[in-house]
């Protein structure tokens, strides 16, 4: 069981900020595919992976990173701080 958290327009498109999720996916990319299959709102949020950034347990990672041992996976658009 992992925690999925969403920010900015990813959160708005998925319609919630946080959920628990049971998965057999091995990588971030697999996990996103699994979510896109599940419901239309995920397919919309993840339609262009170039605009999606991912953090595992609060560290930025790339799409092919393993989610084994991950407690929290976060999805969000490119950051616009400063």
């Amino acid at each position, binding site marked *: 069981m992992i925690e999925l958290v969403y920010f900015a327009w990813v959160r708005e498109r998925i319609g919630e900020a946080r959920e628990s999720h049971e998965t057999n996916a091995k990588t971030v990319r697999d996990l996103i595919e699994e979510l896109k299959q599940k419901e239309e709102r995920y397919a919309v949020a993840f339609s262009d992976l170039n605009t999606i950034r991912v953090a595992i347990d609060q560290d930025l990672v790339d799409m092919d990173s393993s989610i084994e041992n991950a407690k929290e996976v976060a999805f969000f658009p490119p*950051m616009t701080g*400063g």
Partner: protein
Amino acid sequence: MKISVQAEPFDYGALSNAFAQGHTHVGAVVTFCGIVRDDELGGLSTMEIEHYPGMTEKAIKAHAQTAKDRFSLAEVLVIHRYGSLKPGEMIMMVATAAPHRNDAFQGAEFLMDYLKSRAPFWKKEIVNGEPRWVDAKPEDEDALSRW
């Protein structure tokens, strides 16, 4: 190293003074202050800043430590607000102190480039009543390649 992620306003001047005082081996202090900027048409009413509590502090700490080591900084300060801000309000500041001016400038620019694209903040503007997420600029991503 002082880092704060906060909803409340901060006192740029008082923090700058406190940061620059009491050093005898520091020759150069640089500060940067980011301000909510309206466009030419004047339609911006509010800027909302969302962040990822926990990761934000962690990412800023890591970048500040890298800046400190890489540019031999004597001291680093980063303050970044979140929540709802009006045009003219201060969003964030950084300050760097070093023996020589070049390190203080480079350290501040390095920090700003990383905060722009690698700290988990997202800005939403309310323009003429319409909310819109601010897009990341390709030049902000490009700016990282120089470091």
